[in-house]
């Protein structure tokens, strides 16, 4: 098994953290992982992305130009990464703020209205966990249990009281995702 993912959106949406939890989930099931962020001034509000690779074998290049899955959270990222999804791959996006929707027919396009769902939950910070839930539903490469374990590893001890909220958000995402 090898899954190459790009997660892209605005800084502040929790893109890097989502990637980190996925990577930790991979470690929990004894996989090789890499997490390669874009870094720099864009962390402070501009576009931001992270590529995550989960694999049963040694990972060579952490730099990719084609992905099995793209998780897209803003228009700039959609414009940039839609064409980089491998044929037969998956594109998951949040329609919030999107004016030009995905057009490719040779990939599986899924929609998660995570901004709306987070508002329903009354917790804007749950946003990235809702998106993560959507991904896990469409591509169960990491089990729910291992993601929760990864989350526990990623969160500092003082934030462990947020575990329940995050688990809930992941479940919401799993239910709310629409496959188009």
């Amino acid at each position, binding site marked *: 098994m090898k899954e190459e993912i790009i997660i892209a959106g605005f800084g502040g949406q929790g893109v890097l953290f989502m990637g*980190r939890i996925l*990577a*930790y989930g991979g*470690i929990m099931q004894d996989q*090789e*992982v*890499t*997490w*390669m*962020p874009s*870094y*720099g*001034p864009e962390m402070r509000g501009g576009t931001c992305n992270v590529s995550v690779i989960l694999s049963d074998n040694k*990972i*060579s*290049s*952490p*730099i*990719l*130009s*084609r992905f099995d899955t793209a998780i897209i959270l803003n228009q700039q990222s959609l414009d940039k990464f839609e064409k980089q999804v491998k044929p037969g791959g998956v594109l998951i996006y949040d329609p919030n703020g999107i004016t030009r929707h995905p057009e490719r027919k040779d990939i599986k396009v899924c929609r998660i209205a995570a901004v709306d769902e987070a508002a329903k939950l009354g917790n804007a910070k749950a946003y990235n966990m809702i998106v993560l839930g959507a991904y896990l539903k469409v591509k169960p490469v990491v089990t729910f249990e291992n993601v929760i374990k990864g989350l526990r*590893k990623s969160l500092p001890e003082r934030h462990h009281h947020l575990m329940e909220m995050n688990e809930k958000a992941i479940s919401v995402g799993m239910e709310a995702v629409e496959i188009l």
Partner: protein
Amino acid sequence: MAEKILMKGNEAIAYAAINCGCDGYFGYPITPQSEVMETLMLEKPWETTGMVVLQAESEVSSINMVYGGACCGKKVMTSSSSPGISLMCEGLSYLAGCELPCLVVNVMRGGPGLGTIQPSQSDYFQATKGGGHGDYRTIVLAPATVQDMYDYVDLSFELAFKYRNPVMILGDGVVGQMMEKVELRPAKPRRTDKELRELCDSWATLGKSASRPGNIITSLALDADIMERHNIHLQNKYATIEANEARYETYMTKDADHLIVAFGCMSRICENVVELARQDGIKLGVLRPITLYPYPEKALDALVPQMKSIMSVELNSGQMVEDVRRIASGRAPVHFYGRQGGAVPSPEEIYEAFVKTIKK
């Protein structure tokens, strides 16, 4: 099995330093390596191992703090990125001239000047051919994985003390910023005062012991004869390092008739290029120099006769390729592919460039 932790390359440097008994870190913030000092400050090793961590007023000061600590026989280090390393080159020259052990980590970014904070390998010349003034060498290790970043810290101190010479870990923004899982190694305690006396009393400034005159650590020798003797001594030491410490890795070179030479993050990216080539029936392999100084000359030299072509792939305008050409010395055509200014090529892009060179 030891626990495996997900961490960034920069964080790995910090955890490895604490773990391998480093005595002191002196640094100055610069992207993309600031996590090294941030992690150390968060971990507060002065409360556990007694390691000193200090934010200096400049890179000039950091390297001179390293110089002072190294004079005391301590395991001391600094880290920075390209523009900061330029400022440290004076200090590096003194450290090399005085034959002092230390570790300098360069998480390279694009230049020249203030350049970019994106990854680069454009300090190859600076790291391997000098940087500072005078005839000196630093041992240079090029990590390709986060595990390498972790493991090379201890290895660097081993080499630094074995040869009493500065060692540089020459990483880049990719290995610095990337997270991978890291297997932690058994902890080494810091050296005790007694161990330090046994190991370094003959040269270090530990305070004059009764049995010897005061130690003087200096790189100054106004007399040309004395200076030349020192230069020859240094060159002999470098020759020993060249004979014993060249390290490298190969990937699918056994049956290869084309070779890519690449270091650091580029060597991993080029392993994917090998897969693309082999799908097309082209027998391509990769030589990854782990030490950039000493360069794995013999390993490359032995591979040259079987190759129809060699390509050096670097994140710069073509620096290591000069060494590759020198060693190939006309026995195989040597090509170059590189991206500059912080751009990192994908395996597909490199493969396309490679195919063009062999079709010519």
